[in-house]
C-alpha cells in the first residue's frame, strides 16, 4: 500500500510540474505574451519598457526557469489590476468556493443516494421511471441555464431568494442547487446501477432468506457493497465542481475563485489567471489522487496491479 501511495504521489507531482509548464506555455498561445499583460490602449513605448522590465526579451528557457523558481516560492507576480500578489488574492477567495462546493456536494449526495437506492429496489416502478427521467434531464441541463431559470422563478417571479452575492444561508440555495444538479444526476445513475448489480448477488438472497428486515438488507448489505465506485466518483466529482464553480459563481455573483478568474480573463489580468489555473490543477490532481487511494484502500485487488 505504501509503495502504491508513493508511486501515485510521485505521478501527481510530475503532473503538477507539467501543469505549471502548460500554464507557462499558455502565455505564448496568442503569440506575443506581453499583450496579455497590458491593457489594449498601451503605447508602443510602454510596451517596450514593460517587456524589458519583466524580462520578456530573455530567451524563453531563462523565462521558464524564472517562472518555475517563482512558482516554487509561491510567487506568481502581482495582479495587474490590484497591485498585490496574485496568489494571495486568489487564496483569499478559496474559502467561498470550497464552502459552496461542499454544500453542493452534500446536497447532491443526500438526494442522489436515496433516489438511486429506491430506484434499484423498486425497479421499473413509477418512482424508478421518474428517477431515470430526472437524471437524464439533470445531465442534459447546463448549469448556467438552470441557474438563470432558478433566478427567474425564485428572484424575479416569487421574489423569495436573493439573485446573488454571499452572506446568509439563503444565498447558498440557488448556487448550490445549480452546482449540485449535474453531480446528483451522475450519482443517482451510478448508485442505481451498482445497487442493481449487488441486489442480484447470492448473499443478498441469503440475507433475505434469513429473514432480515428489508431496509437492513438494502442499506447494510447492499449499499455498503455498492459504495466502492460511489466513493471514487465522489473525489472525481469534487474536482468537476471546481470547473462548474467558474460558471455558477459568475451567474450568482458568488465571490469565489471561479468568478475572480472570469473577471481576470475579461480584465486581461494574466498573473491572476495563471494562479487560478494552476491552483485548480493542483486541487484537481490532489482529488484524483485521493480517489485512487480510496479505491485502492477499499479494493485490495487493484493495489497489486
Amino acid at each position, binding site marked *: 500500500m505504501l509503495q502504491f501511495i508513493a508511486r501515485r504521489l510521485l*505521478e501527481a507531482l*510530475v*503532473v*503538477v510540474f*507539467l*501543469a505549471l*509548464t*502548460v500554464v507557462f506555455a*499558455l*502565455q505564448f*498561445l*496568442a503569440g506575443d505574451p506581453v499583450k*496579455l499583460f497590458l491593457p489594449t490602449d498601451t503605447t508602443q513605448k510602454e510596451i517596450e519598457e514593460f517587456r524589458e522590465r519583466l524580462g520578456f526579451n530573455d530567451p524563453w528557457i531563462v523565462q521558464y526557469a524564472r517562472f518555475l523558481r517563482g512558482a516554487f516560492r509561491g510567487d506568481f507576480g502581482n495582479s495587474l489590476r490590484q497591485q498585490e500578489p496574485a496568489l494571495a488574492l486568489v487564496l483569499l477567495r478559496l474559502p467561498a468556493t470550497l464552502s459552496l462546493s461542499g454544500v453542493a456536494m452534500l446536497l447532491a449526495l443526500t438526494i442522489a443516494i436515496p433516489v438511486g437506492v429506491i430506484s434499484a429496489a423498486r425497479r421499473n416502478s413509477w418512482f424508478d421511471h421518474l428517477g431515470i427521467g430526472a437524471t*437524464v*434531464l439533470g*445531465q*442534459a*441541463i*447546463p*448549469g*448556467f*441555464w438552470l441557474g*438563470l*431559470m432558478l*433566478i*427567474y422563478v425564485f428572484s*424575479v417571479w416569487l421574489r423569495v431568494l436573493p439573485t446573488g452575492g454571499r452572506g446568509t444561508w439563503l444565498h447558498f440555495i440557488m448556487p448550490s442547487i445549480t452546482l449540485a444538479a449535474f453531480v446528483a444526476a451522475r450519482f443517482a*445513475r451510478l448508485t442505481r*446501477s451498482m445497487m442493481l448489480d449487488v441486489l442480484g448477488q447470492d448473499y443478498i438472497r441469503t440475507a433475505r432468506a434469513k429473514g432480515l428486515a428489508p431496509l437492513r438488507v438494502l442499506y447494510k448489505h447492499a449499499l455498503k457493497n455498492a459504495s466502492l465506485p460511489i466513493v471514487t466518483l465522489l473525489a472525481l466529482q469534487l*474536482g*468537476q465542481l*471546481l*470547473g*462548474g464553480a*467558474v*460558471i455558477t459563481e*459568475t*451567474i450568482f455573483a458568488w465571490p469565489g475563485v471561479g468568478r475572480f*478568474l*472570469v473577471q481576470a*480573463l*475579461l480584465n486581461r489580468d494574466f498573473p491572476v*489567471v495563471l494562479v487560478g*489555473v494552476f491552483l*485548480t*490543477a493542483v486541487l*484537481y*490532481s490532489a482529488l*484524483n489522487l485521493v480517489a485512487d487511494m480510496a479505491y485502492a484502500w477499499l479494493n485490495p485487488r487493484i493495489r497489486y496491479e
Partner: protein
Amino acid sequence: MSSAAATLARAVPGPRPARRRLPLNRSGALGLIVVVLVVGAAALAPVITPYGPADSDLVKTLQSPSRAHWMGTDQLGRDLFTRILYGARVSLAIGLVTVGVSGVIGLFVGLISGYLGGLTDAVLMRLVDVQLSFPFILLALVVNAILGIGLQNIILTLIITGWVVYARLVRGEVLALKTLDYVEAARALGAQQMRIVLRHLLPNLWTPVIILSSLQVAQFIVAEAAISFLGFGVQPPMASWGNMLNEGKTYIYNAWWMTTFPGVALVLTALGVNLVGDWLRDTLDPRLGP
C-alpha cells in the same frame, strides 16, 4: 487443404454477411427524432422564418411572444425564433467540426501511443494526463480567452482541449487489441506495421470512437454555449445560444423569453444527442453498460 480441414471449414459457419442491425428502442428513437428536427430546423432556417438573424426593428424591442414573433423579440427587436434557428447552425457546426477534427487527432495519437509503446507512449500519455488534470470547461475558457473571441477560435479551442479523451480511449483499446491472437498471427505472417494498424486495428476502433463522438458532440455544444455565455467564444451579432442567454440575462426582469427559449433549444439538442449516444452505446457495445 486436406479433406479433414475442408470438412471442418464447411462445418464451422463462416462470418455472416455484413448486415449490421441497429434495433431502435424508445429513447433512441426519441433522440433521433429530436436530432433530425434540430438539423432540419438549422438547414431550413431561411425557409422557415421570414426574418433574418440580424434584422432589427427598433420599434418592436422586447416584445413578448405573439403570432408575428413566436418567441418574442430581443432588445434590438430581432426575432428570437429566427435567432434560435440560426443559432442551431452555429451549435451544430461547432459540435460536428470539433468532434471530427479532435477525434481524428486523438485517434492518431492514441494509435501511435498504444501501438508503439515505450518512450513515445510515456511522453504522449503524460501530455494527456496533464491536460486531464484541468477541469475541461476551465481549460477551454482560458484557452479561448487567450486565443481571442470569434467562431474560428472557439472551434480551435475545443479541438485543443478535446482530443485527449479520444487519445486515451483509443490507446486503451489498442493495448487490448494488440495482444489478441489474430494480430499476433498477422505479425507472424510478416504483415507490415502499417498494414496491421490500418487493416487489423483501425476497423476495431470505429465502434468505441463513434460512441464517444456521439456523446462528445453534446459536450462540445454545451461547452461552446457556456463559453459564449460568459462573454467569450461566439460574439454578437452572430447568434449563438450561449451569447443569446448572456444578452437575455440583462433583461431577465422584463423579458423571460430571452432566457427561456435559447436554453430550451440547448437542452433539447443536448438531450437528443445524448439519447442517440446512449442508444448507440447500448446497441453497438453492450459490455460498456449504462
